[in-house]
């Protein structure tokens, strides 16, 4: 015969203090919300350096592919042969039509040219599947 009451044991439950965990969870939430906007993913554009330009693009033929960032009026444009392009998308479309991708492309950049355009020109050459892209600084 058991004289002890079982009810006493059954009512005893393990209690977890949740307050601290909730505190920390909210702290983490705030951390990720605030830092999330500042974190950026960086990638690389690999390019060769050519100290001197290898020549000028012919006005009629587009080979070899030489992209020059030149000043026209108050702004800069991408010049390929005789064509002047204002956007990187146009440049990519044009470069895709080049048959010879093995010899690579040259990006000639003058000192005053916006670096954004120089980087975009390298990207366009890469997107157009040129095997190598050479960065050529010009005065």
């Amino acid at each position, binding site marked *: 015969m058991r004289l002890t009451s079982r009810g006493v044991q059954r009512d005893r439950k393990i209690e977890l203090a949740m*307050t601290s*965990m909730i505190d920390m969870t909210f702290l983490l939430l705030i951390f990720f919300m605030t830092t999330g906007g500042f974190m950026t993913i960086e990638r690389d554009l690999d390019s*060769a350096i050519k100290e001197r330009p290898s020549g000028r693009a012919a006005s009629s033929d587009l080979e070899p592919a030489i992209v020059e960032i030149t000043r026209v009026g108050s702004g800069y444009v991408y010049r390929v042969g005789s064509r002047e392009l204002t956007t990187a998308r146009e440049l990519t479309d044009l470069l895709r039509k080049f048959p010879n991708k093995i010899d690579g492309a040259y990006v000639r950049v003058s000192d005053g040219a916006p670096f954004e355009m120089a980087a975009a020109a390298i990207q366009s050459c890469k997107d157009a599947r040129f095997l190598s892209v050479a960065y050529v600084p010009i005065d």
Partner: protein
Amino acid sequence: MRLGKRRATPLPELNMTPMIDVVFQLLIFFMLVPHMTRVNKELLELPKLSGTEDQQESAITINITRDGQIIVTNEPRTVAGVVEMVSEEIRRLGGDRSRVKVLVRADHRGTSRMVNQVVSALAKLGVHQIRVGVEVPSR
């Protein structure tokens, strides 16, 4: 027959609060430390491009600000200073210039003047491969 009142054995309680506190503190610590240790990367607005390859570890990261200032490992440098650093790296690699990994991170709002100077100086040292840092645009 047992007449004595059986005492209920108390259930063991695990106090989880300090452990959770410490675990979260460690989590935050290890999440923040990698960001703090990236001293070689200045806060720049890089060209928003897709790039061609994931960013790799580079021996020398050259940051070029919007106004054309060169910063390497949080310190302003001149082109001559960069040349000295790269020369040291070449010496460290036993003269093998092809193994020198240089990453140029330039603000897209600036001109290409300083990039051109750095690139020309590297070419004179025999370093003919650079990588240009870009920022993958957020979707």
